[in-house]
């Protein structure tokens, strides 16, 4: 199995580094997924993680979120260990994984009301506006099992609009989206970068975002 080549993004503005990963090593049973992986994620940056199937993209994303703790190395949040400031880190973090976190029996509004209120107070108007923005006007009150996979994905993306989180970790958010949806998500990500937030995203799409840097895993 090949190991990941350490590809450090060459970002000049080092003052506003949000997330700094150093010498990450992760092995699953017998297989080394990546080793000696270093990268920084600065404010205003969109970092696209690339790599072939099974190269550990999803694992890396989950490690950064704290969902997976079987790794070695250090990950620092604004220069400090994440464990020392877990509350601040988790309230600034928004993660959307392969499983988008949308309950099928609930309506989009009910889903968002819960998943957003885990982090911040949210009003129904905010949710309505966000749903309209992701193109789900008219679907607000229909249970999610009546929606298509792409529409369910859009429900989860509405959280990006509502949330004030400064760090977005998005694992394959484009897979079920149509071309309009892709353009919309790119726009939202760009807006986040301009507002001083940061995005980490895995996808095989080539993104047209000016703030883009690429991190390749083996």
């Amino acid at each position, binding site marked *: 199995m090949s190991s990941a080549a350490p590809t450090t993004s060459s970002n000049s503005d080092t003052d506003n580094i949000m997330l700094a990963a150093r010498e990450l090593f992760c*092995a699953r*049973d*017998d297989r080394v997924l990546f080793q000696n992986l270093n990268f920084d994620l600065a404010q205003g940056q969109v970092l696209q993680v690339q790599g072939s199937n099974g190269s550990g993209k999803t694992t890396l994303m989950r490690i950064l979120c704290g969902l997976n703790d079987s790794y070695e190395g250090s990950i620092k949040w604004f220069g400090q260990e994440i464990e020392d400031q877990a509350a601040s880190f988790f309230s600034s973090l928004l993660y959307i994984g392969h499983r988008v976190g949308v309950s099928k029996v609930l309506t989009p509004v009910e889903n968002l009301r819960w998943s957003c209120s885990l982090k911040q107070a949210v009003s129904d108007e905010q949710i309505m506006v966000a749903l309209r923005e992701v193109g789900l006007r008219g679907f607000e009150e229909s249970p999610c099992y009546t929606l298509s996979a792409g529409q369910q994905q859009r429900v989860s993306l509405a959280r990006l609009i509502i949330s004030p989180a400064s760090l977005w970790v998005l694992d394959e958010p484009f897979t079920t989206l149509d071309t309009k949806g892709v353009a919309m998500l790119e726009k939202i990500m760009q807006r986040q970068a301009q507002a001083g937030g940061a995005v980490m995203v895995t996808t095989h799409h080539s993104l047209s975002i000016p703030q883009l840097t690429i991190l390749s895993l083996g």
Partner: protein
Amino acid sequence: MWVWFSKLGSPKWFYELSGKWLPWLIAAMVIFMTIGLVWGLVFLPPDYQQGFTSRILIVHVAVAGTSLAFFPLMLVAGIITLVWRMKLADMVAKHAAILGAWFSFITLATGSLWGSVMWGTWWEWTDSRLVSMLFQLFLLLGVISLRSALEDSETAAKACALLSIVGCINVVIIKYSVEWWNTLHQVASPVSLDPSSPNGPQFWIATLIMIVAVYLFLSVSLILSTRNEILERERRSQWVQDLVLKN
């Protein structure tokens, strides 16, 4: 290519250290077990109440006493696995669960062989030791089946560690609640003889020797299994490959 960068130190260290200790442990085990068994079977005079069935007790008490050590052992291993993430602790815990189930089962079987003479019945719900041993066996089987159900070895290690900790607390609660339950159901209890009823000093010395022998056996068996586990899990590492070539 197969460079395995994880912390090799501790399993390798254990493998080498246990390799040095093993012959001595086996020798001690053989000596103690021979003395205990020969004494128990040939020399021990019959008990004034129990006759020759006191010979059952020598073995039964030794196995039963030792089987109480498994959950505390798994508790400690579980805490080490969860807090310090030491792989070795999980390897020990994995085989402790299996060996513990064996011990619990043999305790139950020998206990009922003794009971069939002394109580006139193979199974006695009013004996709290038997009942709580039965539930200890169930809990151990639960840990074993959880491990076999989980595919990812790291998840399995942590999950079983947590279940062992919960299980250990539970075994204690079960033990006391079953004892309590029994004090209330002992109206028609046939238990006139306790395994701990007075016996001659010879009996106690023989039992003590057997307890030491059984603990030695436990250590030997656990060490052997753990060494196998190390070889399997670390099979990619250089030192295991060197070791195999030397054999």
